[in-house]
């Protein structure tokens, strides 16, 4: 991949276009369309996850110091489940869907055929470098496409391992990995793809979509946003706290697109919540969390500095009620809770994507809806309550990619729910059958016979034809009979 120039491997537009051409040829030859090919590739992917578990865990440890447990549960196991589900359901997903036809076109039959889009590009993120790379690839393969995967250069060990393993296990005539950074990505984006799936931030999302527009390529954009957690009083506080911790610091130390970004609770309840968080945090990560092996580190110094800057804002730094310890050399930041930070501070206006958790207090919880709706639409929103009315209001008033009541982040693991954003948090959805759909074109097919030809469709047009047409389109049998016998209305 790439040509060498003065000892440096260059991957430019020429190399990118060559890959698209090669994969296009494999796709045109029909190879990827067969059930057998899709099955064999999904099985190979499952094998990658099964046989190289330790290598994957090591790579994730290298890139993010991701705890083994998280690496297994949130990346490897999720990917395996995704492959298994696709393998189990593939026949069923691929089967054409019969639909009813109307009286107007009788006699006929119709169906929807799922066809692959062609050669697709998957650009993935660094925070879950395995899952977010391969989960979309599962969908793309299941739907019968040829795929190019561009893993994030910010998780280099994972990127390298993906390139190696996919090169060994997958059919390289139709599935490729291109490693690289901005230049390589730009070269890829210049090409004509049949679908682009991008996971990352809204800024690059715009660039991807604008590049796609040149070739009229549909996009799946999995972006992020500030996912809020509303916490009611009078709930099971321990369970609530632990579930917030699991979703925030237990998900790559907050570097996850569906991690809780901030909490909204009532003024009265906030101190109790803070106390409970402190207590449970210590149970989970001990007295010196900077040393904890159960927390990921910050991915790189850029992001570490970004987070540090959020904390250093003078209006914010005084609001720390727990944590705040940082260690630059190890790129560590301890779980940090901030109470009552100003709504117009940077930390409340950018996606945090790290271990900082601000708490905003309100008089009445209903006010939270306005706070959430005054920002851009988040990828997820969470609510902890026993109040039925509040649940209903939440579901009705909060627009987000997904909502979870009384838990955080677990909707990601449910393949029967579409996973995707709305507004600033993205376009389109995937997971389970939704992944298959995201990489398929729903082709409408009508079968007609030569019989049953109605002259009313054809010119010359007459008044009688108009009457019959009205009746037919209206679907009224009586009207049809009247029109046929020439009785006017």
């Amino acid at each position, binding site marked *: 991949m790439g040509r060498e120039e003065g000892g440096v491997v260059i991957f430019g537009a020429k190399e990118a276009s060559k890959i698209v051409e090669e994969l296009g040829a494999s796709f*045109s030859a*029909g190879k990827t369309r067969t059930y057998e090919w899709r099955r064999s590739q999904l099985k190979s992917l499952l094998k990658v996850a099964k046989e190289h578990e330790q290598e994957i865990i090591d790579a994730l440890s290298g890139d993010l110091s991701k705890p083994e*447990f998280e690496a*297994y*549960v949130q990346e490897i*196991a999720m990917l395996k*489940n995704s492959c298994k589900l696709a393998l189990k359901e593939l026949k069923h997903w691929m089967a054409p869907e019969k639909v009813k036809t*109307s009286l*107007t*076109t009788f006699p*006929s039959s*119709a169906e929807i055929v799922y066809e692959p889009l*062609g050669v697709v590009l998957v650009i993935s993120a660094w925070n879950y470098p395995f899952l977010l790379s391969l989960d979309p690839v599962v969908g793309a393969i299941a739907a019968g496409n040829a795929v190019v995967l561009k893993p994030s250069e910010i998780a280099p060990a994972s990127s390298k391992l993906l390139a190696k393993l996919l090169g060994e296990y997958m059919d390289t005539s139709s599935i490729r990995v291109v490693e690289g950074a901005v230049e390589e990505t730009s070269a890829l984006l210049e090409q004509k793809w049949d679908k682009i799936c991008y996971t990352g931030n*809204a800024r690059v*999302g*715009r660039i991807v*979509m*604008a590049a*796609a*527009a040149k070739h*009229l390529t*549909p996009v799946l954009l999995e972006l992020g946003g500030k996912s809020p957690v509303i916490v009611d009083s009078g709930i099971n506080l321990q*369970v609530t706290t632990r579930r917030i911790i699991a979703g925030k610091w*237990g998900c790559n130390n907050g570097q996850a697109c569906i991690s809780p970004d901030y909490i909204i609770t009532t003024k009265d309840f906030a101190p109790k919540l803070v106390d409970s968080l402190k207590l449970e945090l210590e*149970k989970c*990560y001990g007295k010196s969390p900077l040393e*904890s092996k*159960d927390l990921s580190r910050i991915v790189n110094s850029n992001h570490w500095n970004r987070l540090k800057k959020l904390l250093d804002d003078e209006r914010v730094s005084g609001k720390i009620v727990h944590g705040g310890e940082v260690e630059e050399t190890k790129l560590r930041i301890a779980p940090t809770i901030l109470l009552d930070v100003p709504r117009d501070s940077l930390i409340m206006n950018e996606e945090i994507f790290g271990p900082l958790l601000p708490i905003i207090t309100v008089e009445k919880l209903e006010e939270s809806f306005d706070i959430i709706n005054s920002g851009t639409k988040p990828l997820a929103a969470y609510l902890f309550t026993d109040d039925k009315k509040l*649940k209903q209001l939440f*579901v009705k008033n909060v*627009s987000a990619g*997904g909502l*979870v*009541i009384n*838990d955080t982040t*677990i909707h990601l693991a*449910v393949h029967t*729910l*579409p*996973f995707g954003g*709305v*507004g600033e948090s993205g*376009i389109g959805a995937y997971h389970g059958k939704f992944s298959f759909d995201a990489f398929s*074109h*729903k*082709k*409408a*097919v*009508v079968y*007609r016979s*030569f019989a049953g*030809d109605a002259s009313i*469709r054809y*010119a*010359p*047009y*007459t008044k009688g034809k108009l009457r019959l*047409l*009205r009746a037919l*389109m209206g679907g009224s049998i009586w009207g049809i009979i009247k029109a046929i016998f020439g009785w006017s209305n």
Partner: protein
Amino acid sequence: MEAKIEVLEESLAEVRKTFRSGKTRSVSWRKNQLRALIQLINDNEDKVMKALYDDLGKHPVEAYRDEVGVVLKSINYALNNIDKWTAAKKSSLPLLFFPAKGEVLPEPFGVVVIFSSWNFPIAMALDPLIGAISAGNTVVIKPSEQASACSAFLAHYIPLHMDSKAIKVIEGGAEISELLLQQKWDKIFFTGSPRVGRIVMTAAARHLTPVTLELGGKCPTILDSLSDPRDIKVAVKRIVAGKWGPCSGQACIGVDYMLVEEKFAPVFIELAQGIIKRCFGEIPKETKRMARIVNKHHFERLRNLIEDPLVADSIVYGGSLDEENLFIEPTILLNPPLDAEIMTEEIFGPLLPIITLRNIQESVEFINSRPKPLAIYAFTKNEALKGKILSETSSGSVTFNDVMVQFLCDELPFGGVGQSGFGRYHGKYSFETFSHEKAVMHGSFFPEIGPRYPPWNDFKQKFIRLGYALDYFGLLLLLLGIKR
């Protein structure tokens, strides 16, 4: 222009406010608006017909079949199904999540804009509107300025009959479209050409707005060498009606060109001539059964297509143009050069090139060497050929032994792929096109699974592994301390 900008911004502010008020979310509001739309059409049918005649010379029967009737049918279908569409769909969850519940709840995007096209100026504006309203959005419609009578009709009558705080019509040309595209929408629905489609999507990218692009393309019709004379007659009739019936070929799913075997071409041409005469009269421009070309610009464009000398030589039927009345008679061309514009650009008019092949099987390769069309039509009784077309070509839709009827099936998604666009509508797909499918999970505080939380240890890891494998027996053994 500045006044226009002001009006536009006021209108937008109003529809945004209306959406925020939550009014459009109620199903009864949606139904009332759909019923109002039926009323609008029923009360003003004659005016619609007149506008369509003024813009395009459409005969009332054609206008009813392709526009008024289509819209009424769609509204009735939406009214009959809206309760089902708006209901949350339950999702089954693995036992491990018990007693949590999952559901997918459709919610409106917000404020949407519909850019419609001039060829079916009523249907292409109102058909998407039905979906946008059914899904509970507030809507701005920008009708094509090239069908000015219809645009004026919509701008005048929609506010009279429908909720004018939620549904606006903004008239204008490219300038207004540009202004509209600078705004932040929650969804853009566009019907038109790939060139403008690119502009629309580029503008949408600035605000991360999802788009549906309904474009066109060269829709081929494969005509196999049928043996039964009755089948041949039916096939030719359907092709003639599909090519020259709806808006004189100015239709995105109209027949663009034909693929037939060499020996069969004369059979088709011979029969088609007779049927054209029967349908549209000996002198079509006098019978008024065919629509005219929309405007001078398009008339010139079509004239250029056939003025190319090599193309002109290939005309075997028709070819006469009436500039004054913007009328082009049904024209058949046999084997025009494949690199001529008529075979590289979407024709969008009453010209029908016939390309002959030695064997009809070659049609698949012919189609695949060109951009993906919005529709493929094939007249054949050969099941193997049908299978080959279905599995080896790609297009928005495929219709066997007829043309254009796929547009009328409410249960089929209508939309393109590749150069012919993306996204789909009609029936429930219209509803989905204007809805965000929100995933909702209802959890409870009990039971609480300890192994979900750090600090991590061996037991927790085993537990999770078994849990993911949905190995409930193994989980039980682990919890009882039997399994290591």
